Structure formats: C-alpha cells, structure tokens
C-alpha cells in the first residue's frame, strides 16, 4: 500500500541530503565549538555556516539568529525575555486567540505573574482586524505577539501591515511573530516588516527535531532565561546542538533553492487537492480561510456528522496520514481553540481533519487522495451513532 504523508504541519521527514549531512556531522564534528583546538574550530565553523544559511533564508543579518531547542523555546524566550526586560515600562501585552499553545500558555503564566494580556479575536477566516489591534493598544503595552501562519487552518495574519503600523506609531512596542508554520513556505522579510523577534523550527522544514531559532533584531531588549557559558551571544547559554544546527542549516540552504525554483509546487498540490475533494466528496466543508488566501500547505476540512479521529484512523488504514486539529492537542478530547475562535459549530469542529503538504509530496500521490477520502468517508458513514 502506498503511504501518503499529509501531516507536514506536525512534522516533516528529513530531506535525504539533510540526513546525510547529519550523519556525517554526528561522526566527524564531535568537538565542542567552544574548544580552542582544531576540532572545536571545525565545529564552530559548521555553526557559522548554518547560521548563514538560515539568515539568508529569512533575509536577516547573520548575527541576529539565535539557536534554540525549537519553536516552543523560541516563543518562551521571546515572550518571557522581553517582558522581563520591559517590566518597568508597562504591564500589558497583546496576542490573538488562535496562537500556538507555547504562546498562549506562556501568556497565561505571565497573567498569573500580574501581566495584563489582550487576546484579539479573528474573523471566520481566522484573520485579525488591524482596527482591533489599534483599539487594544495602550500606553503601557510593551509586547505584541501575533503568529504568521496558523498551524491548524493555515490562516495568514497581515504581519507586515501590523509591524509597519507598530513601527510608525508605537516604536517602543516590541513585535514578536511565531513563524514556525511559514518558514520555508512563504518568504519572510522580518526587517522590512518591522518585526523584532521571530520564531522558527527545524523539523517543520525537513531538519531534525530539537532545533529552532529566534531571530532577534539588534537592540531588542531581552533578558536570557538560561545562564551559563554565554553561547549564542549570551542569549541562550549551553553547548550547542551541533547536529541539529547542521541539519537545520542544510535544510535552509536547500529550501532557499527550492523556494526560487519550485515556488508554487506546494500551492499547486493544494489546489489539486481542493478541486479533487470538492468533486469527489461534495459534502466536505473547508474550515478557515479561502484556499487561495490561506497558507499553501495547510487544508482543514470537516465532513459533517463524522468524528475527525475516526476518519483519521480509517485514512491511516488506507495509508494516508493526517491529523485532527493540531497534533499537539489531539490527546485532549477538547474542541480546538482555533476552530472555536473562527466560530465553527461543534459538529464541524469535532469532524475537522488537517491535510498538510511539503516539498516531499508529489502531485501524483495527491491526486489519489480524494478517492481514498471518499472511500474512507463512506466506510465511516455506514456506522455512525444512530
């Protein structure tokens, strides 16, 4: 049976070149980058190269890229580090209702520490209104954190407009964006967009798990959460995860080339999927943004009357891997906060599944999916609760 992996928003398989590079690095680059001898120097060079590739991919200067253990740590560092540094200047932060749990839970911790947090609503497409931001902002606002692409429905926030608005009117407010889902799929220009802090993760772009970055614009006030040997410009101490960094660097380098060459490969596959599903499974409903407007790699659909988890397992038995809502939250039998925020009715929200693509899918396999979905839906529908 052909295996079709459509859970790329949860994580992606390694690109073969990345895997080879990681294996090479595991064997050869064992020196501690802080060591003064030749082996240490070699490791340090690898890190420098990787940092370069990533800086190039996100259009920033090389000394503003800080390696972390992943997206969650990058988000924690951004939110906790800036609020600590800005404690004396204010008491208010702004975010949205549809952020990743690593942002929402960090803010709820900050609330318990006395911070005031505004959660902006989104429309039925999952997009915030700039006016709501303007109304929410206060004299004591120190931080705005708005994710770029939502991981569950693929809604894209107008972060360049938000960033430019903030820089023009509130230059002291720090602007953070979680770009874990957009890295490598949408080209990022944090400098032009007025972004101070930007989080990204390796394993969403075919690098290993356990490596991420925080872009920190020069001069952004940020207090480290982790004290030690002063690695990563003192912002993130600890001996570097060299294999992760090397893998991330290689992936960034390759994706930088893909993005030029195969700019619309992913969105073409998504459109084929949308077209195929609307013809073959006409009762399917798309959740979130219009497919042309949302992220190129995420499609969230529901079949009314069917539970997402059951459909997920039937699809799995036919070799197609998807997820329900966000993979991180599927352990809880709880309606997704994102679908709730876009006003999806409960029957729709319970049935939501997410199909997400990457460069490693191909059109040929994507064209098989609508029929497999039809077959699976029929199989589940025969036995639903009377």
């Amino acid at each position, binding site marked *: 049976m052909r295996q079709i992996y459509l859970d790329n928003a949860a994580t992606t398989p390694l690109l073969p070149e990345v895997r080879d590079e990681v294996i090479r690095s595991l064997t050869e680059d064992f020196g501690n980058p802080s060591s003064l001898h030749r082996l240490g120097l070699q490791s340090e060079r690898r890190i420098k190269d990787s940092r370069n590739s990533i800086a190039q991919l996100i259009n920033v200067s090389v000394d503003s890229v800080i390696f972390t253990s992943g997206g969650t740590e990058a988000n924690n560092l951004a939110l906790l580090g800036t609020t600590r540094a800005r404690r004396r200047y204010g008491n208010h932060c702004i975010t949205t209702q549809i952020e990743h749990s690593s942002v929402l839970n960090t803010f709820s911790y900050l609330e318990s520490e006395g911070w005031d947090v505004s959660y902006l609503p989104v429309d039925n497409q999952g997009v915030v209104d700039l006016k709501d931001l303007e109304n929410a902002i206060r004299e004591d606002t120190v931080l705005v954190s708005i994710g770029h692409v939502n991981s569950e429905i693929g809604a894209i926030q107008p972060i360049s407009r938000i960033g430019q608005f903030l820089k023009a009117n509130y230059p002291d407010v720090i602007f953070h964006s979680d770009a874990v889902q957009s890295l490598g799929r949408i080209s990022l220009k944090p400098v032009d967009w007025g972004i101070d802090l930007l989080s990204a993760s390796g394993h969403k772009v075919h690098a290993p798990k356990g490596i991420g970055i925080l872009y920190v614009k020069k001069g952004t006030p940020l207090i480290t959460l982790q004290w030690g040997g002063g690695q990563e410009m003192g912002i993130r101490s600890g001996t570097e995860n060299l294999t992760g960094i090397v893998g991330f660097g290689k992936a960034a380098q390759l994706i930088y080339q893909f993005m030029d060459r195969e700019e619309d490969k992913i969105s073409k596959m998504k459109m084929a999927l949308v077209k195929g599903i609307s013809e073959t499974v006409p009762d399917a409903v798309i959740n979130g943004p219009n497919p042309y407007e949302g992220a190129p790699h995420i499609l969230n659909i529901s079949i009314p009357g069917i539970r997402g988890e059951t459909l*997920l*397992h039937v699809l799995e*038995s036919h070799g197609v891997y998807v997820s329900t809502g966000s993979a991180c939250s599927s*352990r809880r*039998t709880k309606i997704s906060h994102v679908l709730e925020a876009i006003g999806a009715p409960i029957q729709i929200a319970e049935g939501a599944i997410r199909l997400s693509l990457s460069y490693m899918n191909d059109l040929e396999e994507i064209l098989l999916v609508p029929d497999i979905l039809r077959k699976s839906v029929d199989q589940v529908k025969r*036995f639903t*609760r*009377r």
Partner: protein
Amino acid sequence: MEKLILVRYGEIYLKGQNRPFFERTLVDNIKKVLGNYDKAKVFKSQGRIYIEEIPVERAALDALSKVFGIIGINPAWKTKKDLEYIKNMLKVIVEDALEKTTGENPTFKVESRRADKTFPMGSMDLNRDMGAFILQNFPQLKVDVHNPDIRINLEIREHAYAYHENIPGAGGMPVGTNGKTTLLLSGGIDSPVAGWMIAKRGVRLTAVHYHSFPYTSDKAKEKVIDLCRLLTHYCGPIRLHVVPFTEIQQELYEKCPDGLLTVLMRRFMMKIAEIIAIKDGAQALITGESIGQVASQTLEALASTDDAVSLPVFRPLIGMDKKEIVEIAEKINTYETSILPYEDCCTVFVPRHPVTKPKLDRVRQAETLVDGEALIERALEGVEVYEL
C-alpha cells in the same frame, strides 16, 4: 557485619501440607522481581525468607513491597553470634534509626528472640542487657516498652540478626499458588483493579482486550499494554490477547435491535474470553463490573452476560463505589494511565437508549440475527498476543 533483607510472610502458614509449595512459589516470585540484582541470594529458613548480597535500596524494597504473600519487609543487619559483635551491630542500627527518626527525645525498646537455644543468654536477658548497652552509648534515648519510637528487633538464629524498620508487604498469597484466570481488560479504571484483587489471592492472570480500530486508535492499545505492564509488578508475567472487535460491533449494529447492542457486545466479549481462557488453562473470567455503575451493569444485564459462558465469572468490584475503586487504582499506580483519554471501544457503538433490564430470551433471540460462530472464529484468527 553485613546488610540484608528479611521477608516475613503470613497467610501461607495456614496451609499445612501445601506449605512447602507455597514457600517455594514465594521464593521464586521474589527472585523474579529481583531479576536486576543477579548476585542476590534468596532462600528460606525457619519461617523467614532471607535476601542476601543485595544493595538495600529503594528500588529493591519497592519491588518487594508489591509481591503478594509478603506481610513485612525488614532491612536488616547480620553478624556473628557473639556479644561483642552484636553490640557493634546494635550501635550501627541505633545510629541508622536515629537518622530516620524525628523528635527531640526518642524512645526505644529491644525485642529479642532466641530461636537458637544453644545461645547462652535468654531473650529476657538480651532485652535487658542490650537495652542497657544502648542507653549507655546513646544518652539522648529513653526506654518505652509500650509504644517506642524505635523498635529494635534482635533475633538469634544461625547468625545474629537485627532490624528496626518494618515495611508493610502487599499481603495476600503468592501468585501461582491458586491457579489461573482470564481478565477482561478494557483500559478503564476498574478492570486493572479487579485483576489486581484476584491476583492478590495467589491467582495468575492472563488478559484479553478488545480493539476496535479504526474507532479506537492504536494509542488505546498501547495504553492497555502499559496497564498490563504495571500489573505485572504485582501479578507476575501476563499474556495479553488483543482481539479485533470491529467486525462484531458492525454486524451487531446493522442487524440487531439498537437498545440491546451493549449487552450483545458484552456477551461476545465473554464468549471470546472464555475460549481464550480455556486455551490458556485458566479456570475463570474476571471483569471490573460493579452493580449499577452503567446500563450494562444492572442485575439483568449481568445475568445476560453470565448466561453467555459456563466458566465462573469473578467480579471482585461488584459491591464497591467508584471512589473506593479509584483509591485502589491510585495505590497500585494504574490510575494515571487509566484516565488517558483515548476513546475505548465501549464508547463508539453505544445505543442512545440502552435497555437497562434486558430479558434473557429476547437477548438470546437477538443474538441469532448474526452468525456468531463465524464472527468469533474470524476474531480469534486476528488475535495478537503479547507476553508481558
């Protein structure tokens, strides 16, 4: 002088002729849970089990505290049967006891037993002389013969043994001394507790779980495997049979009256479990049912499920409240795993209005609407077996 662990066992004293068999089984079970300590020597002598050449550490004591048939565990010291040696040993023990005792002026008592009657001093003399010796050396201590903070036991046997700590054992009887039964394990809170209670009476377990992929995820199966592993700490090795159940549920759903689905499903579960039990050499079935907990646990429904099989069905939780069951689940460490929220097969094909008082003849009649034998045969062909 060296450290060792003394194990005291209880109920098996009562077993007259069977006593050597019970003791042998207990020694074997102890050896099994101490498998990681390959140098440890486990042997019995004069109504005690001795574990020597083992580090007396938390992990070893924890493992022992889960072995059925043990009533008490004592981290102990042993030395030569010579008064000077014994006094040195007592010093070490009192120091150890003082480290573990809080309070300003702790009280103590020496309780001696002279099993070796060739030893020149009697137990009363030992109590008095050793007590005096301790008082001399530890002036902060006081004697209290009724309710002491520190109770020092001194036993004169092949060697002189002493201990002050008594860790309660799990009680019950050694697993393997009372036959074998088959546990229907759903993955909820109740069934692991039911299995634990029967195993406590010395009964070996095998387990059956019904899996309804794709209506339940493979994570639900993983969870049942984890639960079984947790039970093995008490019950010894368990053979788990995972039975594919989807087809049976679908057939019942399409062909039988909606209100009877649950009771019919449970009858199939019992029948399949019985076949597996007999193949495994088990002599009874165990379920986690308690009266009235859900619609399938009314007296009528229980009678309907009993009717499906001829092996005895044990329901050790039958008269317990949920709260009492949860307390045991927490004690035996299965609760946290049990409450992980994966859909289990009982929640998928649940009728909106289950018949709470099913009439037996109607149930039997409804069952004829499907080809039960063929369904059971196919389910048995798909069984996965895990030796845990």
